[in-house]
């Protein structure tokens, strides 16, 4: 198995979750994903429509109370080993929305984040750097170099 995974480098599939974002990061993610100018597929990644196929998940938005459980459910559906990327300052720290009555973030209160890409919104190239970093972590996890086993990574609701 190890030999096989050494020879064959798999391609991570990307999935994005909007956790109550203002659209900025989502539009930039769509731009990064879907148009030839940024062409994320060059990095050996592609977007998929189902969390069950995903390897790298990109989360935007400050995590509102109303999406919290839905986001967590979708996140749990993604098979291990997965890598979580927080895109924009909102999921990382709450950004300008921190302290709002329906803000549940920062997202690492609930979900173990691996990569942060701050910006408001980050430019597509910056998002691509984040994806590259996430891909590296993901490959390390596949090869057992980096931690990230199921038992260590749990999500709990308060």
């Amino acid at each position, binding site marked *: 198995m190890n030999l096989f995974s050494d020879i064959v480098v798999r391609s991570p599939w990307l999935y994005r979750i909007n956790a109550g974002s203002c659209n900025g990061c989502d539009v930039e993610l769509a731009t990064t994903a879907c148009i030839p*100018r940024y062409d994320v597929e060059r990095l050996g990644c592609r977007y998929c429509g189902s969390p069950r196929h995903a390897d790298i998940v990109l989360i935007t938005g400050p995590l509102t109370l109303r999406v919290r459980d839905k986001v967590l459910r979708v996140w749990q559906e993604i098979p291990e080993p997965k890598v979580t990327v927080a895109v924009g300052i909102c999921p990382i720290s709450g*950004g300008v929305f921190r302290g709002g009555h329906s803000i549940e973030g920062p997202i690492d209160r609930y979900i*173990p984040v691996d*990569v*942060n890409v701050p*910006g*408001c919104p980050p430019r*597509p190239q910056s998002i691509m*750097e984040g994806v590259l970093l996430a891909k590296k972590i993901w490959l390390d996890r596949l090869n057992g170099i980096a931690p990230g086993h199921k038992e260590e990574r749990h999500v709990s609701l308060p």
Partner: protein
Amino acid sequence: MFRFLKLLGKNLAQGPSTDPFPAKEAHTPERFRGRVVVNPEQCVGCRICHHMCAGGAIRIEDNEEKTGYNFTVWHNTCALCGMCRHYCPTKAITLSTDWHNAHTQEDKYDWAAHYSIPYLACAGCGAHIRMLPPQLAARLYAHSPVDMTDLLKLCPSCRQLAAARREEISNDTHEQE
């Protein structure tokens, strides 16, 4: 068919529209609003940036010995809006064009710029102050006939006194002439 060939020719001539990043460095416009950078020389600690910051990314607090203050910008909550830069009276804050921001979770709280800015002792009374930056002094004393450059190292009250005294003397000499 002919139209198709024309289009093909046009597209071939145009070259690929794909941005070469990450194989090559991406083009960054001069005005790009990237990470906040503070010039400690220029900072007078007026806190207007802190007042303007909607993301709560700036923290200014005296150090333990009270000999200066620590100025911290946490990039992970900075909205890059440029309000701090716009309202900084001494232009101590700039936004760099650096957008290489992706980092791992271990670095989340390290993703900050820390500046340690010392107070000076007022040449008059010895109180802890920040030196008045020359540009700001030039604006404050724009209408004064006297050279005020050596007043910069005084605290506001000492400086006021000194400035008033000098203008008085200068007026007197003018009258005598």
